[in-house]
């Protein structure tokens, strides 16, 4: 297993290198000059622009910049954000917690609820309950998430006033202790829901399909023939065997959830990486963009790796290298 992980990591390295290089070149060859954004809306003297450019190393040929960048990334240094005038790593670290909180909550919610709904639908296949779950699922999957976010805000925050419309914590400061935590959870509900819905319905669909695939498998029949109860049959055998595709979908969609957070965090004013990315795109903050893209790609790679490892662990048939 350790060797397998090591091999996968070694395989992933060139991939990540390619991601960095491509992103770097993509961004470097776009028209426009980030420095002009930095100085604001009045004409700045050319000397000043030149000074800024050399300050950020933008006056060098692209391949030199790329080389410098790769060298620094290798040493864990993601450069300096000229828009925020901070080291990129500290900028990202500042926001990392919020994003982790949001995406993990969304993932967890989507997985648990999605699997539960999928199992229920599969067991009631063809019945009204199944139809209902499938119909809601299709709709949930089809509503554009940015629109959904707005509708949620309109309904639950502005209309009903049950939940805050945006932000991370009460503005004037959260109450201490437990109460504060509950207050904070209020802020989490809508964005987490908006972020998870598509994913949730996807998991429901996959779980349902995978369950249907295995519910009529011979070993399920055999287990019933041994007198096993429904719980054992469904959870112990069916869900376990349906697990691989479900797990795969969960793992391989982590990237999409992360990317989706760019939208949701912006709509809900959540102070995370996604919004930072969106802001950095509009400010042309190359180092931040690059670092976040790399981070997302790396997360995807790691998520895939974890999925495979988990898959191997769950399924003894996959050979252990």
């Amino acid at each position: 297993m350790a060797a397998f992980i090591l091999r996968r990591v070694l395989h992933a390295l060139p991939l990540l290198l390619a991601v960095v290089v491509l992103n770097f070149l993509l961004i470097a060859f776009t028209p426009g000059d980030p420095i002009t954004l930095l100085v604001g809306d009045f004409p700045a003297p050319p000397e000043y622009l030149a000074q800024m450019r050399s300050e950020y190393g933008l006056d060098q040929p692209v391949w030199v910049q790329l080389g410098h960048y790769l060298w620094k990334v290798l040493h864990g240094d993601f450069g300096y954000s000229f828009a925020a005038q901070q080291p990129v790593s500290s900028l990202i670290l500042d926001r990392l917690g919020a994003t982790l909180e949001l995406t993990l909550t969304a993932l967890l919610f989507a997985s648990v609820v999605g699997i539960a709904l999928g199992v229920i639908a599969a067991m009631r296949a063809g019945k009204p309950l199944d139809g209902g779950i499938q119909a809601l699922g299709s709709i949930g999957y089809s509503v554009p998430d940015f629109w959904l976010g707005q509708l949620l805000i309109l309904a639950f925050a502005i209309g009903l006033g049950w939940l805050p419309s945006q932000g991370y914590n009460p503005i004037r400061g959260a109450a201490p202790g437990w109460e504060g935590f509950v207050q904070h959870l209020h802020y989490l509900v809508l964005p987490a829901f908006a972020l998870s819905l598509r994913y949730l319905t996807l998991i429901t669909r996959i779980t349902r399909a995978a369950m249907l695939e295995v519910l009529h498998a011979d070993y399920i029949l055999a287990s019933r023939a041994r007198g096993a109860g429904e719980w054992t049959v469904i959870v112990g055998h069916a869900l376990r065997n349906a697990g691989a595709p479900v797990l795969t979908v969960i793992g391989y969609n982590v990237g999409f959830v992360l990317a989706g957070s760019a939208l949701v965090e912006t709509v809900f004013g959540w102070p995370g990486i996604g919004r930072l990315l969106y802001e950095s795109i509009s400010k042309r903050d190359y180092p931040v963009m690059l670092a976040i893209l790399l981070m997302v790609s790396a997360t995807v790679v790691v998520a895939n790796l974890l999925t495979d490892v988990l898959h191997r662990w769950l399924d003894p048939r996959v050979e252990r290298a």
Partner: protein
Amino acid sequence: MSPDTSSAPLLELRQLSVDIGQGASAVRVVRDVSLTVRRGEAVALVGESGSGKSMTAFAVMRLFPTPQARVAGGQVLLAGEDLTALDAAALRQVRGARVGMVFQDPTSYLDPLVQVGKQIAEPLRAHGRTEGLQARVVELLDLMELPRAAQVARQYPHELSGGMRQRVLIAAALALQPALLIADEPTTALDVTVQSGILKLLVRLRRELQLGILLITHDLGVVAETCQQVNVMYAGEIVERRPVVPLFEQPLHPYTQGLLGSMLSPASRAHALFSIPGGVPAAGRWPTGCRFHPRCPIAQPGVCDVVEPQLVQRLGGEDRCHFGGEPVALHAWEKQE
């Protein structure tokens, strides 16, 4: 030790019917099947593919591979108790505890993700045993003549050979010492050498544990080696039933004779090989009259294609042929050739 034919039947099917599908589109794949298994007796159910053997077996435990199938009529008596009258919970108490079941393809009937020991212990757990599971599993695997039982218990199905897997399935079926074992083509997927091992095992268990066995197969050679009673099934119906020796020596139904005739023996050469022409009609598209008449060499127009034959008692067994009692039937196929 010969089977205790005097005792009350262990399993008795009475006029059992199985339907697939609902309402108008329902197809009766098993019709009015009656048969009996006693303690310590191996009873065969033979017939070509699609004749309804498996459906009959599944009907015993009311456990079908497709949700469309259901028992449409008749009774299943297990030691006198009617299983068709039980509710789901009560039926679950029967499954695995009083009736064990073994299937054709040991690979697909074992959960690939669960250690075989756990699967053998499953009926024990399902029926409330929590202690000494490990020991019982090892004991069962020993009984199945598997070496290094403790190690095998920890392995996964794909790590075992086909013969070992089939033994595991049998071990799981016998974990709670049921009186009846239903074995649906337990050796079809296996090599001949492995098959002979499994058959020997079944024969031993039958005698040592006084196990009643309902053995489903299409291989008459297997039947000849292991069973005492034989039920021949065609198109959802029992067409002949008799003890094994008379059945082989003096089959009355032309279908039985055909089956026996198409067996390969060391003496047969290909050009001389016999086969029943045609095939089993698809379920639901049974011909009128005798279901076998389109393939039958002695079928007589006006009789066989019109009148449904009934099971008739004769010569120590039963058969379902209009001419079963007449001399033509004894050598039906020879006259054909």
